[in-house]
């Protein structure tokens, strides 16, 4: 009888058996929980589109993906608070390229990522060269660049192809109306449409958050032939040529004169409303490719299918396309590094990248962006490829947020006429120097 069997067992054996069962149960629970990864996404059309396919990944690998999706400033804050060297709330975080220096020491270098079990480890060389640099820091690849975000220019096709406007413009300016190739052409054409009441804005500026305004300032300064900050002798150094920088600011001030009303505070929402929802709209402006899906959505945009995409127009020193790419990174403290890596290999695979292109978003893989199937249906892809030839990065260093605030403050004061551009630029120089000095550089 069982009763006797149990009774006869020594107590130690019974205890041993119970403990073994408990330990096995714990291991099983641990194994199941190891198959869940916490991912921190930034909020835009690209990760939101990807989310549609995540159940497929979960089915293929048995790894459950917990997603938290936040606006970029909150992604930055959450990463700052939740990721350290020895603990992390996330197994995978998305880091904006400007913040790579801040978080690099907390992330696992890509060459240490485990090989995939279900999906093959992605060769970094599949990433477009202009984007690969995004995740490089201190000679190491910190994570993998995941989207192909850099300035692409949008111009209203319906306006530049209108025979009457073409004739009138040529009569006034002596050259053909078309996609602006230079800053001067952009100003001429924008002024033509704006002063004749054809558009609400001849140019759509960006005067929203500090990082975006910093991008505009760097775009203008590079286009006028000066860098702002460079790494020299292992430290960020202010190298700006004030005269050239002031010229860039002055030119932007001229563009502000043909911008839509409220341009002083235009962020992405207002730019999109002005370009897509205003019946007159805006003639030309830059766009981050991540936002193209909204501009080309006929339900949201009056100009869907009426936009020509190109590389940015050239300033006196040439063309420059500011980059704003995100990298995916695995924190050193993650306990689910392999599962997190598996998720990235799936996300950056050719199949998913191609599907993301099909859905009007822009991954970082060259083969997906240059897929001939999309050459006609996705006209912005050629423009992105062209812009990548002129990719330029915003300066990257740990104290960049303070410098961005300084630049934003005085840049807007300069371009809106609240302060002479020369004085505004001097303030930028003085206060940036002060920040760098206080930081010990």
């Amino acid at each position, binding site marked *: 009888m069982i009763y006797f069997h149990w009774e006869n067992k020594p107590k130690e054996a019974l205890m041993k058996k119970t403990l073994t069962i408990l330990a096995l149960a714990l291991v099983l629970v641990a194994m199941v929980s190891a198959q869940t990864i916490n991912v921190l996404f930034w909020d835009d059309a690209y990760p939101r589109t990807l989310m549609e396919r995540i159940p497929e990944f979960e089915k293929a690998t048995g790894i459950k993906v917990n997603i938290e999706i936040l606006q970029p*400033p909150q992604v*930055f*804050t959450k*990463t*700052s*608070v939740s*990721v*350290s*060297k020895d603990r992390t709330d996330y197994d995978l975080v998305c880091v904006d390229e400007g913040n790579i220096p*801040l*978080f*690099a*020491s*907390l992330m696992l270098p890509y060459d240490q990522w485990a090989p995939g079990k279900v999906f093959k480890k992605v060769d970094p060389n599949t990433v477009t060269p202009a984007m690969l640099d995004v995740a490089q820091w201190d000679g190491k690849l910190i994570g993998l660049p995941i989207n192909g975000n850099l300035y692409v220019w949008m111009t209203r096709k319906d306006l530049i192809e209108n025979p009457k406007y073409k004739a009138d413009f040529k009569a006034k300016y002596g050259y053909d109306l078309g996609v602006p190739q230079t800053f001067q052409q952009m100003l001429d054409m924008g002024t033509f449409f704006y002063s004749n009441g054809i558009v*609400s804005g001849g140019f759509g500026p960006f*005067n*929203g*958050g*500090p990082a975006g305004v910093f991008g505009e300032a760097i775009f203008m300064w590079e286009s006028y032939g000066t860098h702002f900050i460079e790494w020299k002798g292992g430290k960020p150094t202010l190298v700006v040529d004030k005269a050239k920088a002031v010229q860039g600011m002055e030119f932007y001030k001229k563009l502000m004169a043909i911008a*839509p*009303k*409220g*341009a*002083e*505070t235009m962020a992405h929402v*207002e730019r999109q*409303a*002005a370009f897509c929802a*205003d019946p007159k709209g805006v003639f030309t402006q830059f766009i981050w490719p991540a936002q193209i899906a909204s501009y080309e959505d006929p339900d949201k945009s009056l100009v869907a299918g009426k936009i020509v995409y190109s590389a940015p127009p050239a300033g006196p020193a040439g063309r420059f396309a500011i980059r704003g790419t995100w990298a995916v990174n695995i924190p050193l403290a993650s306990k689910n590094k392999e599962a997190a890596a598996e998720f990235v290999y799936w996300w950056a695979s050719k199949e998913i990248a191609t599907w993301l292109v099909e859905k009007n978003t822009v991954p970082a893989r060259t083969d997906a962006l240059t897929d001939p199937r999309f050459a006609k249906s996705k006209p912005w892809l050629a423009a992105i490829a062209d812009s990548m030839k002129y990719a330029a990065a915003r300066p990257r260093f*740990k*104290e960049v*947020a*303070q410098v961005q*605030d300084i630049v*934003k*403050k*005085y840049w*807007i*004061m300069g371009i*809106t006429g*609240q302060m002479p551009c020369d004085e505004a630029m001097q303030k930028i120089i003085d206060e940036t120097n002060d920040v760098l000095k206080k930081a010990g550089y």
Partner: protein
Amino acid sequence: MSSRKPVTDSPRAGRPEGKARTRAPFLFLAPAILIVFAVLIFPIIFSLFVSTWDWPLSEGAGIRRFVGLGNYTALTRDPEFWNSLKLQLGFIFIAIPIELLFGFSAALLLNREFFGSRIVRSLLLLPVFFLPILSGMTWRFMLQPRYGPLNALLISLGAPEITWLGNPSTAYAAIIIQDIWRMWPFMFMLLYAGLTAIPQELMEAAEIDGAGYWRRLGSVTIPLMIPTILTAILLRIIDALRVFSEVYVMTEGGPGSATMLFSLYTQRQAFGYQKVGMASAMAIFLLIVSIVFALTLVRRNMSLDVLEEKAGG
């Protein structure tokens, strides 16, 4: 009759029980004191502690090191700090008197019964229930120069188009107007409650003595309302010192730093510049300012003697 002596008569027996009696209230209060310490006092002490450190938000931004009063002295040298303090105090001294004026006037007007008076009083409270962030968003869109209804109205009346949030002075005015719109009903709510609590006999006595409306207002109503008015002002000041989300969504502190209130600058220090120590020093500074306001209002104007004096006089 018991042969036992009363406990108090016995020095040996009395001492322990006396101690127990002394201890008992503290033991009963201990859980509450502990909770108050954990929830109210500890965060302040911790904030004070952090304010003496160079404390980066992210471990990637550097290492923590003790700086003593370094953050406080650095703040005094930071022009943006003084600018944000000036803007914050300006916000308080402009918005709150106007809210008080509107709230008190409305309370006086509506302190009577008429058809629909309850509905009117309830409807007036609606803005207070608006989420601050939603209020900021709504005002941001209302003030949009091209498709905002305010400009549409002004233009239809022949006024020029105004870029409300793009100009430093109009942006500052806009955040104050938004606050007045949202919070004057709060003043109304408190002051109306105060008005209804005034004994009717006093008013009737004043009326029999020949006092007109304005005399009754100046000599009876306002003196009796002083505690309520001061409480309302104090609550609003404390609230206005912490105003953040509505201004953040309206202007993010811009244009330039025209609306970079103290609270917004504190947030920038902590989450933008990764300087938690500096932000904590600002928080402690704000706490001191709040205490100064509270002490000035409460100790000098709300002591029982003063109130009795005012009510009696």
